[in-house]
């Protein structure tokens, strides 16, 4: 396990550095800049240039990145160009919302996806085909559109849940829950399709194997065979998909937080990109990258727990 963590660290550090450099370059290559966003279209050239200088946008790209990296290595991610607020503060305020959204969506996706996958594999026939249709629907439907539909039905038409906004848990646990239902349902249900398909395929593959026939011949209960043997053997592939689902959810938050107006990192990514607010974009990229590599570590640990060969 220690060697696994060591290996992970050896890849994680250069990965975060590489992603931060890549993000910096890409964000800087996007046409337009923060100076124009601040000055407006009508600003005279001298004013635009003055703002560029003030923001150090007239400096070479590598120099700006080095300055950012030097600060970041000392724990200073800089200030938002748009608001003047520190990037750390913006990340702190918003990270919790995004994590709650992602974790909630993962739980929904796992329960619905794995449940439907197993059901489909065991029942087959009409139920299997139905699950296939639902899965395809989930794969095909953009979460953005699905969120708007849920909002139109459950918030605007039936007024069961709020259409937009986020209520902190400390303010009202019940309203906090209500404010998260539709966003989590949007992300969780659309993500569950991948899991359902993978689970179904995995379970069907395992059910066809000889050891299942042997176990059945020995008179072991079907439930035991499924839950103790088949699911365990199908789990690695499902866990891989769960890791991918998590990564997909990170990008999904960008749209869903916009639709439901949640103060998370996804929504911040949209406004920061629009405003060419590179320090904020960098901060979000670093957080998202760290989350992804952490999840990869968890996936590897899970593999190791399920498969002794990996542990060795």
């Amino acid at each position, binding site marked *: 396990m220690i060697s696994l963590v060591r290996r992970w660290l050896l890849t994680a550090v250069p990965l975060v550095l590489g992603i931060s450099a890549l993000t910096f370059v890409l964000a800087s290559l996007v*046409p337009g800049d923060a100076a124009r966003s601040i000055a407006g279209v009508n600003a005279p050239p001298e004013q635009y240039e003055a703002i560029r200088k003030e923001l150090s946008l007239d400096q070479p790209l590598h120099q700006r990145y080095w300055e950012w990296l030097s600060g970041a290595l000392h724990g200073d991610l800089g200030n938002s160009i*748009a608001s003047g*607020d520190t990037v750390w503060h913006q990340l702190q305020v918003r990270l919790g919302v995004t994590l709650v959204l992602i974790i909630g969506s993962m739980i929904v996706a796992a329960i619905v996806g794995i449940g439907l996958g197993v059901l489909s594999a065991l029942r087959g026939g009409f139920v299997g085909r139905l699950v296939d249709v639902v899965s395809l629907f989930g794969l095909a439907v953009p979460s953005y559109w699905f969120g708007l539909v849920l909002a139109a039905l459950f918030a605007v038409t039936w007024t069961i849940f709020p259409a937009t906004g986020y209520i902190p848990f400390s303010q009202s646990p019940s309203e906090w829950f209500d404010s998260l239902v539709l966003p989590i349902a949007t992300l969780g249900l659309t993500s569950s399709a991948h899991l359902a398909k993978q689970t179904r395929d995995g379970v069907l593959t395992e059910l066809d194997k000889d050891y299942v026939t042997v176990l059945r011949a020995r008179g072991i209960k079907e439930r035991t065979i499924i839950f103790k043997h088949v699911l365990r053997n199908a789990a690695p592939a499902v866990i891989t998909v769960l890791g991918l689902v998590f990564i997909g959810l990170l990008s999904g938050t960008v749209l869903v937080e916009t639709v*439901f107006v949640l*103060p998370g990192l996804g929504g911040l990514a949209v406004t920061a990109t629009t405003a060419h607010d590179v320090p904020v974009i960098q901060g979000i990229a670093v957080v998202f990258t760290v989350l992804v590599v952490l999840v990869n570590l968890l996936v590897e640990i899970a593999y190791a727990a399920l498969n002794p060969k990996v542990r060795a």
Partner: protein
Amino acid sequence: MAYVTSASAPREENDVNRRQSTSRTAASLVVVALVAAGCSDAADKASSTGGAGETGSGTGAATTGDTLTVAVQAPATSINPATVNTAFVAYTNIAYESLTYRASDGSIKPAVASSWKFVGTGNKQLDLTLRNDVKFADGTPLDAKAVKASLDYVRAAKGSNSQFLAMVTSIDVTGPNTLSIKMSAPNPMLPEMLSQSYAIGSIISPAGLKDPSKLTVQNKSAGSGAYVFDPKQSVAGDHYTYTANPTYYDKAKQHYKKVTLKVISNPQAALNAVKTGQVDVSAGDASTSAQAKSAKLQIAQVPFVWSGLNLIDRGGEVSKPLGDVRVRQAINYAIDRKTVSSALLGEYGVPTTTTVVKDADGWSKEAADRYPYDPAKAKDLLKQAGYANGFELPLLSIRFAGIDTMSEAVSSQLAKVGIKVKPSFVADEQSYVTKATNKSFPAVGVGYGAQPMYIMGQGLFLPDALPFNGFRTKSPELIELYNKAAAAPPAERSTLNQQMQKWLVDNAWFAPVAFAPVFYYARADLGGLQVTPNAPVATLLDWHDTK
């Protein structure tokens, strides 16, 4: 008609040039419309659920409400009045009381200044008298010295709005509550420019000016406005909360205990928020107007942003044909404005041949009727100019706020008379500004918020009006008209402004196609929501509960 396209202006026109740089601001209102609220326009016609060009059904006596929540499309780039972009003045004008107040009917009312008058002739000196009962939120009194310090700071801060004060030569304190602003050139619009709409007249306290770098979202605001920005109740980029200012001088104008500006960039989400009562007012757009109507929301709208072509190469430097006024006129005759407007903007589009909305400053029926759709006449004019077989016209456009689709529609129209438009689209403002001003394109797709002629001149058609006068075209006749209007008393100015607009139309400097409206949606019982041709951007200080 000869045009000069030079960066250097003759001496006698220097005043004009200074004023031009003063008001590139005009187009800032474009941004007001296009960015801030997603509001893009305003007009003179009645809204579907409201009164004439203006409001919805919320009427009745004002009562004090608890919280007003307003959806805005984008977070503020600054909450310092000296550096805020005109598109985001909603973030500053509720916390920083301005010298004057632009009411929803467009009239200029007293605020910190109880009265003002131009002294002498030529609109070059404005004397103001201040109220004597105004205090900043920190309790210190607001007097003439504080106003001078604030205006001087705005001039020095070089924010986009500082251009409005570029022609000011001195600000003299003449008494505890009186001051005199002297200018190098006539500026009849200064009282309006000192209103909440332009931020420069929003007064910052001496305490705030001690360290302006602290006028950010981390700190309380330092004004004398009806509300005070509260950083503890705000999350930058998500919501901005303002609480009632206990020292505010006019409690009757303080309609809420708290005001929250909530950033909702998605139009559908904003509409949902209004429908479900989470938000009281939101900017709207054409894509959601039908839903708002069916939900029986209060809708206020008025035409505001005209879109079409800006024929900037009027000297024929890059495109020789455009140097001929007959060709530019042919372009205007060749556009079926009614069809294009209806197709792109639906029932709210207002076809136009002028850059001003009906009944607003500078509008006249003669100019409005100048170019009926007449492709035969267009072909005839092209033939007279020596382009019977048409010509190729490179066009710069931007994929923003429907300017691109308008450019495509106009291209199709012009193809019918033989003008082969070659559009090039950019996606960002900076590329647009650069290419519109480096003489690489003779024509530009444009969206521009309607303005009084004086301000529009500085932002749209005077020699230094960049980026919209990309070739710096200069017409002595137009400049003379402009100068005369600027120095004229109000009664004469109106006629001169009409003449100026007619000149622009006759000489076909532009090919406007249609005005798109600015929309606001609100709950039915909200009062005070009104937009008019002379005040297309609503101010939330007017809004109040009616029950």
